[in-house]
Structure formats: structure tokens, C-alpha cells
């Protein structure tokens, strides 16, 4: 059937092609040529839009921040007062809260993320179980931040509060826990919630890094008599070190900008204190809480200045991570 019908089809289409005036092998004109040209231009145009979005974003935020930049200059960075009534604004407590809560998150997320990556990439478990496990951990990334915050407030904090009260009463002599009768909303809780949220990033990228390490390295180590964990510590972790550093940087970038969950559990009190059991405040949180009701002028300007600082901070961390990945890729190839 197919054999008998095909030649006939081909013949008819050949005929129509030969009749077509625009049938030209080295076309520099005609419908198709102009179609192709405009298609290429269109693709370039949209690519330029993508690039423009980032630059426009920087410019717009800088422009919004100008009143505050003119008023406070760089002194904004180490000013400690935030008084909306008297129009005095300083960023230091927010910068401090953002950096410390992200640091706590990284501290928890790196070892746990590496453990998950090892369990899901090495042959501890049958492969079907491994993929399910990796899949389930990645689901955490899909849960909206605001729902994690809701869970944090109503489920996680009641669970964590007794432990934190015990830390505050027995380990008072350590400055990190020097808070009398801490309430559940504080820097430590926010750090742990952040750690949960950046865990999928850390685990997924580390897993990719580990999978990319050639099998020969593992086999060689095993052949020399290394156990699985000796292979992990002496071969895999050193070989994947720079990849894991960039995974941690990408996770850090995410932690710095995370807003809703942190706003709901950190206590929103702009202060700088050594104790992790005291409430704190972060840049994204103050933006989320104050931006909608802020008065145009200096208040919006100060908040935009904060956004600009956060933007610069995450940009630096992300560019660092991307460059590191590129550099490692070039070194390996």
C-alpha cells in the first residue's frame, strides 16, 4: 500500500515545486528569504529584551533609591536607626539579620545537602528508591514560601520552643544563646526554616556534581582497597569540591533573597545582638512589611536603597557561583 502510493505523492509535490517561481537554491530574495531574515531579527530582538530586563531592573531600582542615596550616602550602610516619623533611616540591622540568618541556613544545609546527594547518587539504595528520594526532596522547592512560613509559625515553632528555652536557660554563658526566656520567633528559627528551603538547591546541584565525577575514579579507589566512605572522603569530595562550593553559593543567594517564610518567623525587630535567640529583621522582610504602606519620597527611597543593597549582594554571590561553575568546567574539559 505505502509503496504504491508514495511515488505518486512525490511526483505531484515535485511538480508543484518546479512550477514555483521562488524555487531558487541560492536565494537572496523571495518570501522565504525575507521570512528568514525577519525571523533572525525577531529572535535577536527577544534575546535583547531578556538582557534589557536585568539592566532596566538595576536602573529602575537605582532611580527609585536616589532620594535616599542623596540624603544618606554610604552612611546608610552603617546607620542603625530606622525612624519613619523623623525620616532617619539606616540599614545595618537589616544587613546583619540577612547575612546571619543566611549563614545559619548554609551551616545546616551544606552537610545535610551533601548527605542527601551522596545517598541519592552512590549505590547505597536500589536505583528506583534513589530517584524517588531525590524527587521527594526536590518537591520541597515547589512548596510556596508562604506555606512553609505558615507551617513554621503554627507547627515548627511550638515544637522548637522548649528546646530554645532550654538552650537559653542552661547555655546562657555562651553569647550565642544569651537570651532570657526566648520566644519562638527569632534568628535561629529563621535560619533553620531557611535551611529547609535551600536544601533542594544544595542537594540537587551537589548530586549533579557527584554524578559528573568519572566512574574510573571510584573504581580506582575501590581497587586500591578503599571502602565506600574512604572513597567518598578521599576521592569524591576533593574532586567535587569546587562544584560543591558553587552549589553552596547558589543556595546562599537563594537564602539571602527569601522573603515570606523568614518574615513570618524571624520576629521582625530591628536590632543587632549576638544572641541567636533574639528576634531580628532582614532586608526582604522589611520590604515585605513596609513597602505597600510607605510614603513616597524618603521612605520609599530608603526601602529601594535596601532593595538595591540586596540586589547587589545576591548579584555578587550569583555571579561568583556562575563564574566558578564556568571556571571548573573549563578546567575539567
Amino acid at each position, binding site marked *: 500500500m505505502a509503496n504504491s502510493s508514495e511515488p505518486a505523492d512525490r511526483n505531484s509535490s515535485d511538480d508543484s515545486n518546479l512550477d514555483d517561481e521562488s524555487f531558487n*537554491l541560492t536565494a537572496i530574495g523571495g518570501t522565504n528569504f525575507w521570512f528568514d531574515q525577519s525571523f533572525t531579527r525577531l*529572535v535577536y530582538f527577544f534575546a535583547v529584551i531578556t538582557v534589557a530586563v536585568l539592566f532596566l531592573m538595576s536602573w529602575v531600582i537605582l532611580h527609585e533609591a536616589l532620594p535616599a542615596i542623596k540624603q544618606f550616602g554610604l552612611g546608610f550602610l552603617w546607620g542603625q536607626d530606622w525612624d519613619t516619623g523623623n525620616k532617619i533611616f539606616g540599614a545595618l540591622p537589616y544587613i546583619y539579620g540577612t547575612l546571619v540568618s543566611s549563614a545559619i541556613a548554609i551551616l545546616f544545609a551544606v552537610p*545535610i545537602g551533601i548527605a*542527601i546527594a551522596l545517598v541519592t547518587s552512590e549505590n547505597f539504595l536500589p536505583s528506583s528508591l534513589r530517584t524517588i528520594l531525590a524527587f521527594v526532596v526536590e518537591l520541597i522547592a515547589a*512548596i510556596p514560601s508562604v506555606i512553609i512560613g505558615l507551617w513554621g509559625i503554627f*507547627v*515548627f515553632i511550638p515544637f522548637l520552643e522548649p528546646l530554645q528555652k532550654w538552650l537559653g536557660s542552661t547555655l546562657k554563658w555562651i553569647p550565642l544563646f544569651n537570651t532570657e526566656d526566648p520566644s519562638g520567633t527569632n534568628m535561629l528559627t529563621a535560619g533553620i526554616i531557611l535551611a529547609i528551603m535551600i536544601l533542594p538547591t544544595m542537594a540537587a546541584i551537589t548530586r549533579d556534581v557527584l554524578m559528573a565525577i568519572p566512574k574510573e575514579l571510584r573504581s580506582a579507589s575501590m581497587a586500591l582497597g578503599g*571502602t565506600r566512605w574512604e572513597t567518598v572522603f578521599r576521592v569524591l569530595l576533593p574532586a567535587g569540591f569546587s562544584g560543591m562550593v558553587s552549589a553552596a553559593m547558589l543556595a546562599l543567594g537563594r537564602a539571602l533573597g527569601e522573603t515570606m517564610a523568614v518574615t513570618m518567623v524571624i520576629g521582625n525587630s530591628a536590632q543587632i545582638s549576638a544572641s541567636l535567640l533574639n528576634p531580628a529583621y532582614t532586608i*526582604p522582610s522589611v520590604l515585605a512589611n513596609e513597602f505597600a504602606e510607605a510614603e513616597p519620597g524618603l521612605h520609599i527611597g530608603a526601602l529601594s536603597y535596601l532593595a538595591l543593597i540586596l540586589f547587589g549582594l545576591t548579584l555578587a554571590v550569583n555571579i561568583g557561583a556562575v563564574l566558578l561553575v564556568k571556571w571548573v568546567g573549563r578546567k575539567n574539559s
Partner: protein
Amino acid sequence: MSGYIQSENDESLAKELCSPLPTERVIFTYAMNAIAFGLTGLALIPLLSILWEILIRGISGLKSEMFVKAVIDNGFGNAILGTIIMVVIGAILSIPTGIMTGIFLAEFGQGNPIAGFVRFITNILTGVPSIVVGVFAYGVIVLVTKGFSAIAGGFALAVIMLPVIILTTEESLKLIPTSQRLASAALGGTRFQTTFRIIVTAAIPGITTGILLAVARAAGETAPLIFTALFSLDWSEGLLSPTASLPVLIFNLYNDPDPQKGQLVWTTSIVLLSLILCVSILSRLVIRQRRLN
């Protein structure tokens, strides 16, 4: 060297070679196994706990009339509508730009320094905090139109969706073998014909997955909507007026002393979470099936 065959070392060496691992190495292995599995288990607890608590606390309040009532009447109909409207606006803005930029990276990208730069910018765009995107949308739309609106919220969501769509489009276009491009070119296909009739058609499942992932991510975003779309307790009056959305409903009402509103928050969480989990599980399954084939 000569000593090793004749001397009494011979026996102990043979013993060492034949014996199983020394005790400390066995202990190390088991201890590390325990630590690794323990930490992995620890990571799963929050996820299971979140799903469990939301289901238990929210399911009792779930009634069908909530879907058609506004927040002011203890429903979440206006928030669902608002979320859909803003995600659609975001999709209309970001899908064409995202797919075209993805095509640029995959098809025009080999050895093109501009493509390297665009890819770099896209990666950076992925890492921009959503709240900063909100400040951007505030400056571009809210300040210009002089009011919080669904359009401003949709614009913010578009910026968040854009890099996701670009990167997944590029990935799925790269999966199409080069031989298909060559075949199309050999038959006289122009770049436009090759790209659209052959490559994009073959990559449609992958691109759809990317769009679904972007939609799932945008539907759960709260931060950029707080001060672009704001919120409204009743049905929104139009695209240029404040608009409610599911995530902002949760954020605005979670501290409400009214127990009815407290219940509403948990029920909304069920609806939002099941919406997002369905979409993202679906899209991930599609990806996995394609990888297996």
C-alpha cells in the same frame, strides 16, 4: 624486599590480606552510613510534616461554596481568580520572550559570544530575589499607572517566569539531535522552517514542561505581589485595581484573630499546595519519561 617471602612476616601479611576490614574501618563505615541516612531522613521530616499538617488542619473547612465567594464572605473565589489572571498576564508576557530567547541560545548559540552573554544574564536573572523583582515592577508599573493593579502583579510574575522558560526551552531544544537539523537543511529548509517546523515541533513537550514549571513557581509567589497587586477582600474591579491572590491571602490573614479567617488560611493552603504540587509533579514526570526514552 627479600624478607617478605621467607620471614615470619609472611604469615601475618597473609593474615592481613585475607582478613576482613580492621574494626575501626568497619566502625567508620557503619557510623558514616548512619549519619548519611540520618541526615537524609531529617530532611524528609519537614516535607512530610508540612503536607500532613496542611491536610489535617485545612480539609475540615473545605466547602464547595468557598470557590465562588470572595474573602469578605469567607471564601477564596476572588483570590483564585486573581491568581489565575496574574499568572495569565505573566504567561502572555514571558512565554514569547522566553521561547524566542531559548531558541536564540540553542540554535544561534554555537560559538556566538552574544549568546554566551545572554546565557550569563539569564543565569543571573534566575538568582534575582523575587522581592527585588517586586520593587522593579513597582517602579515600572505602579508608579506609572499610579495604582496597585493586577497588571503590575502580572508583570512581576512575568520577570520571575522568564528565566525558567528560557532555560528549559534551551535544554529541550538541545535534546533534539543535530541530524534532524541537517536533514531539514539538506532538503532546502531555511533556518525559520528548520527551527519552527522541525525543532520546535519536536521539542513541544519539553517546552510545555518548562511553561508548567514556570506557572507553578509563579502561582506560589507572594513577595512581589504584596506591593504590586496588593490585595482586595472583595472581587476585583478590573485589571487596573488591587487584586487578591491565594499566597497573599495566606500572608495577610494568618495572624487574623477571627477563627473563621484562621480556618480559611489553612483551607487556602490546601488549594494552593495541591494546585502547585499537581502541576510540578506532572511536569517532572513528563521530563523523566522523556529522559528514559
